[in-house]
């Protein structure tokens, strides 16, 4: 429990700095922030907006108000000539799309990486191992946006096998959902496969040298059982930590891939906010992404401590 408590303090400190940075983004805008946020508005409207955003208040007042709004779900608005529309409306439909994309990509990556990693470790140095390692090393150098564009062109346009844009919810039509998600998820997963496979391979090679593996083999336990039950378990903890850290890369990739395949997720919202100079919306979207990322890593850390008895019972 002490591990969890220490992690919790760490979490709060990090959350504080992350939200402080995001909350002060608007004051980092060059020139008058109100001109940047709503350049089209009349002088009275700008004055009202300045009042509303409290840009003249001291830093801590601004931060306090921003965080109060954020936790109660007030994410500010999109400003246009016709008025203000709440950002929250868009986020509530976009967030599930992005989460589905990332979970599907992550699962796809693990489904390929785990068997490849386990078998490569078992036959380390064999032709299979060398071929798999070299191929994955090459895959690691393909940027996900490049893969997405190449897939969109060959599979989507030339062959016409899969639709290149749009989104269908899984509860509407599951098959169509996967058809639309296939290319975006593959674009994201390929790089991750290489990362996980390499990691699992080196970790398992080390585990296979340990005494308890020799012991298990000496007892006459079948090799596949030794491999999957005895050796994979400790190595899967390392995999879990790295999978948590990799969510950061995954988020960055998902933003770009969503834009390429016009998937209406957080990335597409971010893209629209940047191009329409909607700085308040940008601020809220970045805050959601950053806080989500911090929380995921915290959960992974806690899970790690709960799953690994060596850490669970450690008394610092």
């Amino acid at each position, binding site marked *: 429990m002490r591990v969890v408590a220490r992690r919790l303090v760490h979490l709060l400190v990090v959350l504080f700095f992350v939200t402080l940075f995001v909350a002060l983004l608007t004051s980092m805008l060059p020139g008058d922030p109100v001109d940047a946020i709503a350049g089209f508005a009349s002088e009275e409207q700008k004055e009202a907006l300045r009042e509303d955003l409290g840009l003249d208040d001291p830093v801590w007042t601004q931060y306090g108000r921003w965080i109060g709004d954020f936790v109660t779900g007030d994410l500010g608005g999109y400003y246009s000539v016709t008025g203000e529309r709440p950002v929250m409306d868009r986020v509530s439909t976009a967030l599930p799309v992005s989460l589905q994309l990332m979970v599907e990509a992550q699962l796809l990556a693990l489904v390929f990486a785990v068997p490849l990693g386990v078998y490569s470790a078992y036959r380390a140095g064999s032709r299979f191992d060398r071929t798999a390692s070299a191929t994955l090393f090459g895959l690691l150098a393909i940027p996900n946006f490049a893969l997405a564009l190449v897939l969109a062109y060959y599979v989507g346009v030339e062959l016409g096998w899969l639709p290149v844009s749009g989104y269908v919810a899984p509860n509407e039509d599951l098959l169509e959902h996967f058809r639309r998600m296939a290319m975006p998820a593959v674009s994201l997963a390929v790089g991750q496969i290489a990362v996980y496979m390499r990691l699992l391979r080196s970790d398992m*090679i080390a585990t296979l040298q340990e005494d308890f593996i020799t012991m298990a083999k000496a007892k006459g336990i079948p090799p596949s059982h030794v491999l999957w039950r005895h050796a994979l378990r400790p190595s899967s903890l390392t995999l879990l930590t790295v999978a948590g850290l990799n969510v950061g890369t995954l988020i*960055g990739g998902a933003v770009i891939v969503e*834009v390429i395949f016009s998937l209406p997720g957080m990335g597409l919202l971010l893209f629209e906010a940047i191009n329409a100079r909607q*700085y308040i919306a940008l601020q809220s979207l970045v805050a959601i992404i950053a806080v989500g990322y911090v929380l995921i890593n915290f959960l992974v850390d806690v899970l790690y401590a709960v799953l690994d008895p060596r850490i669970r019972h450690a008394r610092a």
Partner: protein
Amino acid sequence: MPEPDQVAPVAIRARRRTLGVPGKLAVGWLLLVVIAALLAPVLPLDDPNDPVGSIARQGPGTDGHVLGGDGLGRDLFSRLVWGARASLLLSVSAVILGIVIGGFLGLVAGYFRGRFDTLFVGLFDVLLSFPQLILALTLVTVLATGEGVSSTRRMVVLVFALGVVSIPVLGRIARANTLTWSQREFVLAARAMGARHRSIMFGEVLPNVLPAMFSIALLGIAVVIVAEGGLSLLGVGVRLPTPSWGNIIAEGRSELRDAPHVVLAPTVAIFLTVLALNYLGDVVRSRLDVRESAL
């Protein structure tokens, strides 16, 4: 099914002095890119920003244009060479920024430990708690979008944003290595002889820490080249008309159907460069035994 006792032992990689064929190819490709980027103004290339209507969207080999023309009829090969210039300038500057600032903070944290260590490790943690691309994207959008932003300001802000992202990665490597090197006898000896902290840090410890940072910096350059591509697709990369590998891809995206070569050529350039940098980074790291987990 082979018996479990046939499980191969950990392959002990021979530490060869030579690079081997793949290593030489990697060095060769990188040299080619660097030389092309440096010599772009004096090479006999077409103007990268001069549209020739007849080669618009035409594939490789049209009218003596090696890679054909882009959507507006600008020579694609010329844009690729000039693009290498922008992409390399950006990525190398950003990583140097990361090495200087991250390296300094890491060195101080690892050498003095105590309060400095807590403070700087905390800073690295906070910087790492943003997904990298999102942090860079946010900084560029807030500091360098809008009507009055010049290409130069965009470039400077891009270097700053991508440099900030690389500070914690390089800083942690510097700190981890400084921690071990500061325990060595020659540091103790220098201290016993009355050397100042500054001269021990920069004269004794830093030269030993640099090789590890260099191996990570190679990977860092690759990451920044890819990140620029991503930022370009989101509309906040190197500002047009200055070509970069990223913004050539971003521009070509709208004509993927009619002129796929515009996207494919810079994609291949990025792929080969990243592959070469990753490979050399791996070679240097396995020579130096830099642990990947320290990342």
